[in-house]
């Protein structure tokens, strides 16, 4: 397709350009440019999704050479769903961030340039069909995320950013070593070329490469026990940054784990390895939720909630590996639905938490009294996002957990059901811990100042989307099936 308006290249070019232009414009500038560009990106992502539903998955040869000499892009349903999530989260958050940085200027200077490049990295990552190109997008994404954690300045954020940098570099280093082993074995890094070459009789180097790449990506996704870097990084950054990181950045490495596990390394996967990954996911759900319950800072609670919710994503693997096709299908749908629901809900929750912190002037759950009376919409947003995280109907989180439960029952793995039920109860406990405090009257000596309306409405839009996802999720699941054989 050589249409001027082919959405696939523009989804990468556009954020690259507006991010760079925002830097040229100067410190703190570029918010309006970003919002206009994000509206266009949303339309492009929708157009791409419509094209895929009509015409099926498509490859795109950058430079016209084609793999293995050149680099190919590949857009299928899974990629399109993630692209939609990215633009759908980024657009309301950009509106939110514009209001947020008008209220607090800390960290404003480089927010827009770094965010632009980060979105370019995300979009490029989702459609890349080349192992080395994926590494480049991972580096772009990781450095952008670290930069965003550091923009607020001060000792704690910079310490968190440095710890995050070391973790993310170790993760990409392991991934790159895996890519080198694969290139050493086959002489190519193109997914399309490699897919038929990797069989269950592949040399040991390929097994080692698969283990390194998957471990590196799990470290970047902060799967338990690799979650140590996440809470200080996500909890310490400015609210729009926390939202972007929790909603999108960790989903990118999760997406790659799914891609590699289900497609490229599928011949090498074993039930034992899948059960181990599932067990780490289960441990993440329990451990993350328990730690969320013990937090006294609001954003740290939300950050530990991310650690727990990441666990659900990884339940996909035991449920989809060497089980019945029906169970595997629901497992993939459930895992992807969880990525979407958590993306929207966690963005809403961090945004709402940010508004509460701006309003009360401090990040302390025990001092939230009065928020319910003064910021009802924000508190409602927090509650709605909580409903999605708990997995109550009719939210997207409910659909996700329902699909995962269905897969667990169909594949006879009842133990994951128990984990999900306990996780849901613990989630309810930490969400209500916040809500209960927020409904109390203002404490003596505290004050709750109103926040700009735009902060409240943009966060509400995200929470509403996370609920509507459950009602209108079916077309997305049809889109997900594009290019997946079944």
């Amino acid at each position, binding site marked *: 397709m050589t249409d001027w308006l082919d959405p696939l*290249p523009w989804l990468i070019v556009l954020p690259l350009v507006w991010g760079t232009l925002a830097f040229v414009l100067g410190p703190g500038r570029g918010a309006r440019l970003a919002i206009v560009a994000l509206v266009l990106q949303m339309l492009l992502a929708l157009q791409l999704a419509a094209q895929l539903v009509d015409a099926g998955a498509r490859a795109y040869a950058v*430079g016209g050479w084609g793999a293995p000499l*050149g680099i190919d892009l590949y857009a299928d349903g899974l990629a399109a769903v993630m692209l939609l999530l990215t633009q759908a989260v980024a657009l309301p958050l950009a509106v939110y961030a514009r209001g947020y940085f008008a209220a607090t200027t800390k960290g404003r200077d480089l927010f827009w340039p770094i965010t632009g490049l980060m979105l370019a990295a995300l979009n490029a990552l989702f459609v890349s069909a080349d192992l080395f190109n994926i590494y480049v997008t991972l580096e772009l994404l990781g450095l952008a995320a670290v930069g965003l954690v*550091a923009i607020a300045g001060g000792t704690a954020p910079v310490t968190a950013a440095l710890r995050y940098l070391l973790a993310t570099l170790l993760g990409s280093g392991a991934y790159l070593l895996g890519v080198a082993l694969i290139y050493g*074995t086959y002489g190519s890094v193109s997914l399309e070329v490699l897919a038929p070459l990797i069989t269950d009789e592949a040399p040991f180097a390929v097994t080692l490469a698969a283990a390194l790449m998957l471990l590196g990506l799990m470290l970047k996704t902060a799967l338990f026990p690799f979650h140590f870097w996440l809470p200080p990084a996500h909890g310490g950054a400015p609210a729009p940054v926390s939202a972007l990181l929790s909603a999108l950045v960790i989903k990118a490495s999760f997406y790659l784990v799914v891609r590699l596990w289900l497609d490229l390394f599928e011949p090498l996967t074993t039930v034992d390895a899948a059960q181990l990954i599932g067990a780490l996911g289960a441990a993440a759900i329990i451990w993350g939720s328990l730690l969320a319950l013990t937090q006294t800072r609001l954003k740290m609670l939300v950050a530990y909630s991310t650690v727990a919710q990441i666990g659900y994503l990884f339940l996909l693997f035991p449920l989809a590996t060497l089980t019945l096709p029906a169970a595997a299908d629901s497992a993939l749908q459930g895992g992807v639905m969880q990525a979407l629901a958590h993306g929207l809900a966690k963005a809403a929750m961090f945004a709402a938490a940010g508004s509460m912190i701006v309003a009360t002037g401090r990040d302390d759950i025990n001092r939230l009294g009065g928020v319910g009376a003064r910021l009802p919409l924000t508190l409602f947003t927090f509650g709605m996002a909580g409903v999605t995280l708990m997995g109550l109907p009719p939210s997207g989180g409910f659909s996700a957990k329902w699909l995962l439960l269905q897969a667990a029952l169909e594949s006879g793995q009842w133990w994951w059901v128990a984990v999900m039920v306990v996780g849901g109860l613990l989630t309810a406990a930490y969400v209500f811990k916040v809500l209960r405090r927020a409904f109390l009257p203002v404490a003596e000596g505290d004050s709750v100042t109103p926040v700009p309306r735009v902060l409240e409405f943009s966060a509400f839009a995200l929470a509403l989307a996370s609920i509507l996802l459950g009602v209108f999720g079916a077309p997305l699941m049809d889109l997900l099936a594009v290019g997946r054989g079944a």
Partner: protein
Amino acid sequence: MRRVLPVAIVALAALFGVALAAAMLELPPHAVRLPDDVAANIAASGVAHPITAVLLNFRGYDTLLEIAVLLLALFGVLALVKPHAARAAHPAHPLLQTLARLLAPLMVLVAGYLLWVGAIAPGGAFQAGAVLAAAGVLLRLAGLLPAWVAPTLLLRVGLALGLLVFVAVAAAVLGHATLLTYPPALAGGLILMVEAALTLSIGLTLAALYLASTEVRP
């Protein structure tokens, strides 16, 4: 515990090293011969040197994103700098200043040569940019350049120029072909143009990484 941990780490690392060595020893012959592909297509790439052809043409998309990585690294450094913390340059020894004044123009000349020669021999934008950046660092050390803690508009344009030109060239063909397809007749000229812009921006970015980061305060 304190004793056990380092031992365990060393043991694990050794085990991993052995596994890696074992994996390398049994590598099969490559199923895909990329160097042959490169040789077969180099005539159409617009340059004669295979590395430049891979970096700017065959896998130019990787390079495009790597330029963004470089710019991003600078954003990260700038995020850590407090603008009011900028120190005036230390006046260096007059001999060093004279030397820097003599060397800097020569380094610009060398950068230009490396850029030009990249089409046929080892060289190109990264090498040329690195030499430019070295000139910037030398001038700073000699006390002849101020710290770049808050880049001016002109400097920001220079820093962004390489990426913007590269993206513009990549997207200019979108009506007729895929992203980053050079029309064969123009490939050589376009690659030189992209590399020239990249040399400037890479040089400025690498220099800025140093000229800004010397001002980072805890």
